[in-house]
């Protein structure tokens, strides 16, 4: 397998692409996001699956993002996502609100190749008035039972960081099986990993359950500590001090520029 780095993957992401981004606690593509900022990506449409944190806030702050669909945005315990809030206030971000299971359901519909999937709940929420792409129908199986239908949503590209890849292009996400749904639903997946291991993880019965087949993965790059400042399963813990520092700096444009200079442009992928 050719060795690539996060910058090489970022080069494969076209401006304007719809990108699925897992949140801070679920193999988030932090190194890839920094690489996208470095390459000056523009007009990206982000989908937080199902919520958003550091990665989306960083990309919004750096001016890479035209729209963000998400169910919530926060930097974990550090509070609201400051650059997203600032862009919203400035009117430079198109924020499309959803609710967590709706995002899962839209991806599951794409995974299954069906044009829509129903979801209980949500009726009575003002979300509906702001989602013309969502429909309420009468349950065809039971009269007088309104139910929400959600359209399939296939991201152009899923970005995430996994523990390892193998020589066959499979990637290991362990218990974070929700990443499989994202990879299945997306047209392409670009994945950074801590390391590449020999052999084929899908042929190893002890590893297969936590492995996403290479059939869904377009390219892999090695990015040690590529989820940082988020944690990675039991490999490394979340760097809560860094996230708190980020959240504090990102409260102002100057502070955010300072953050970019110190941790992104000048290389901050490992600490």
């Amino acid at each position, binding site marked *: 397998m050719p060795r690539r780095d996060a910058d090489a993957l970022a080069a494969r992401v076209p401006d304007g692409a719809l990108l699925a981004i897992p949140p801070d606690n679920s193999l988030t593509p932090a190194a890839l996001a920094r690489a996208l900022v470095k390459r000056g990506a523009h007009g990206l449409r982000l989908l937080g699956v199902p919520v958003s944190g550091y990665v989306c806030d960083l990309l919004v702050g750096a001016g890479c993002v035209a729209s963000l669909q998400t169910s919530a945005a926060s930097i974990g315990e550090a509070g609201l996502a400051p650059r997203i809030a600032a862009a919203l206030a400035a009117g430079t971000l198109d924020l499309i609100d959803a609710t967590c299971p709706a995002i899962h359901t839209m991806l599951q519909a794409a995974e299954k190749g069906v044009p829509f999937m129903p979801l209980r709940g949500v009726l*009575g929420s003002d979300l509906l008035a702001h989602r013309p792409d969502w429909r309420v129908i009468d349950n065809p199986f039971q009269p007088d039972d309104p139910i929400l239908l959600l359209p399939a949503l296939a991201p152009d590209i899923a970005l995430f960081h996994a523990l390892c890849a193998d020589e066959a292009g499979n990637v290991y996400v362990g218990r974070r099986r929700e990443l499989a749904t994202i990879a299945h639903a997306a047209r392409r997946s670009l994945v950074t990993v801590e390391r590449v291991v020999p052999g084929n993880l899908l042929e190893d019965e002890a590893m297969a359950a936590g492995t996403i087949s290479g059939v869904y993965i377009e390219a892999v790059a090695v990015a040690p500590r590529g989820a940082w400042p988020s944690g990675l399963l039991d490999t490394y813990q979340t760097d809560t001090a860094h996230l708190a520092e980020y959240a504090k700096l990102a409260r102002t444009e100057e502070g955010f520029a300072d953050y970019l200079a110190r941790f992104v442009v000048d290389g901050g992928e490992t600490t």
Partner: protein
Amino acid sequence: MIRPEERLIGAIARLILDPSAPPARHIAVGAASPIPAAACWLVKLLGHDVRLSLLHQANGNPFTEGTRELFDLAGQGRIDLFFLGGGQIDGQANLNLIGTGAWPGRAARFPGSFGSAFMYLMVPRTILFREEHSPRVLVPRVDHISAPGVSPPGVFRRGTAQALVTGRCVFRFDPAAARFALASVHPGETADSVRAATGFDYDAPGAPPLTADPTADELALLRGPVRARMAATYPAFCRRVFGEDVEHSHG
């Protein structure tokens, strides 16, 4: 000395154990909810047969399909009780996690709806919790409804809010009337002080009782075994509320 947070934990634990409510065999707790999480641990360590699914806890994540598994569990009817809050909460128990001003929060943006629009309707019992009790938070009518407090007949809904616990009091919720009633006030508060701090109208039959303090046994559990189970996920909260750690057990 009993800390205010310990009293809130105790009050929530009593609501969980309310024998008049549907049974809570499986309780889920969302992220960044140390007080509800502590109440659940307290109930469990008091010896009640309850399963806890705590999102985002540092150890022992119970899921292999992320939050989708939580929502599917709720869809299956396997979650009996959940906790929600809101940037605004109104007198009909509508929740606003979107923001104020023009959609989607031009005046002030809240974090977003999370799974509230689903969970509030799918779970038989929801305990609302918001520490800040002010006219800013408890409003006559939320600017935007993330999740509705009640639903018209014909809408599939398994339950509503059971109660709203704030830093000042406990309200019970009557879904038939779509209205809160004051159930108890925390020490230092009165019927009048709560009324003055509340933006929505509610029932207040007679003089409200004081919210009961946790018992000595409950406090011992909170400061020992409960704290031990929460320290990895909420270290700052544990230090602030339970004081310096005196034991290191973690089982």
